[in-house]
């Protein structure tokens, strides 16, 4: 547990001091939102609003990819990744610390993006803020669990920026399916549908357990 907290602390402190990851993620996701706004005809029509959940999650996923890639490339500086791998604990705790910090940093970017998204697409997110935050959190846990695992795999490959999306995007289909449907249901009816949330919960649990178990081998050279 102390290793989990140590890694979480270290990631958040280094990010707070440099702010390079969150800045890049925010700029990217806000750019996606603005481009969608101008590319879709008619501004905040009903059709546009129907596509809103998909657009929001596209912005989230691309922002997450950027952050996940950076998360481990920072560990290559001074071979710090080896320093972490030397810890005499089950490396699942290392995975959990990295996944938690990735989720929190992504969450910060998602919060700001959602605010801008609501304004630009004239979607009243305030009324559904709490359940929406729950859906976003569940989706982010799914993205960051398997994302952290594959970011650790990709970081030692020659084309890591390309490798991570190639490995990760197919595995994100169930997460995005659940997240987009749950968000769409919320925007339409204001109520949380059980089925997509169930899909998110099962996917999150599966990805967390599998990633915990195989992370030990991923850190090996």
């Amino acid at each position: 547990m102390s290793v989990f907290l140590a890694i979480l602390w270290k990631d958040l402190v280094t990010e707070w001091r440099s702010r390079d990851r969150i800045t890049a993620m925010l700029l990217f996701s806000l750019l996606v939102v603005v481009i969608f706004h101008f590319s879709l005809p008619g501004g905040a029509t009903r059709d546009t609003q129907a596509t809103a959940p998909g657009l929001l999650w596209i912005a989230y996923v691309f922002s997450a990819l950027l952050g996940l890639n950076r998360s481990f490339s920072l560990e290559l500086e001074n071979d710090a990744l080896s320093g972490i791998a030397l810890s005499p604990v089950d490396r699942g705790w290392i995975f959990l610390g990295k996944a938690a910090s990735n989720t929190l940093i992504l969450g910060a970017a998602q919060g700001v993006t959602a605010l801008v998204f609501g304004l630009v697409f004239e979607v009243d997110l305030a009324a559904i803020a709490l359940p929406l935050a729950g859906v976003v959190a569940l989706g982010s846990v799914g993205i960051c669990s398997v994302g952290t695992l594959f970011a650790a795999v990709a970081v030692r490959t020659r084309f890591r920026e390309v490798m991570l999306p190639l490995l990760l995007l197919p595995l994100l289909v169930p997460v995005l399916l659940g997240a987009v449907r749950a968000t769409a249901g919320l925007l339409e009816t204001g109520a949380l549908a059980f089925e997509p949330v169930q899909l998110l919960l099962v996917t999150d649990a599966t990805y967390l357990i599998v990633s915990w178990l195989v992370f030990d081998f991923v850190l090996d050279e």
Partner: protein
Amino acid sequence: MSEPALRAVGLGKRFGRSVALAGLDLELPQGTSLAVLGPNGAGKSTLLRLIAGLARPTSGSLSVAGTPAHRPAARALVGFIGHASLLYSNLTARENLLFAARLQQVGEASLRVEQLLETSGLARVADLPIAGFSRGMAQRLSIARGLVHDPPLLLLDEPFTGLDPRAAAGLAARLASLREAGRTLVLVTHDPKRAAELADRAIVLAAGRVVFERQGIATGAADLERAVLAAGDAAT
């Protein structure tokens, strides 16, 4: 009788088609120091990373004090000082050590960190980000990091690289004192003089095999230098 600090039997490591280590046998009693020399690509760093549990052997076995090297319990016995510092440049010296202490599950981490900052001569700069540190200061901090959990086995991968003569002499003195304190040292170096000065035993690797071995204080720098040159010639 206590387990040897290190035992490798038929140790092999491949990276794809490339053979880094080919059936290495080695036994190192506790409290002794071993220098590992050889030309580039001989398998020296790979051997060290296998002992540290950072990589798994492709064949053979490797144990640290009787525990397989890739197990967490073995990693607790090992301090690793690489030619990279393993430090985070936007953390301070104190934060870097505190983080390492927490990773190594050190009890009373803050106290231990203060001790190490004092003995490393870094107490005055403890709260500065290490991005502004000289190579010598970073190396002292890196050594403190490797010692944070007081490991009985210390692995050093070319620790003298990039140090000026004064810093190198300081590091040599520090390693000598660790050796006198009964720590087992495995030192990878290109410098036969340092090897002769710091080790009671030396091996020269070439293409993943031991091509020269010398035990005891008779290990001379000239012998080692000749063996390393011969190994380099054989490799090319």
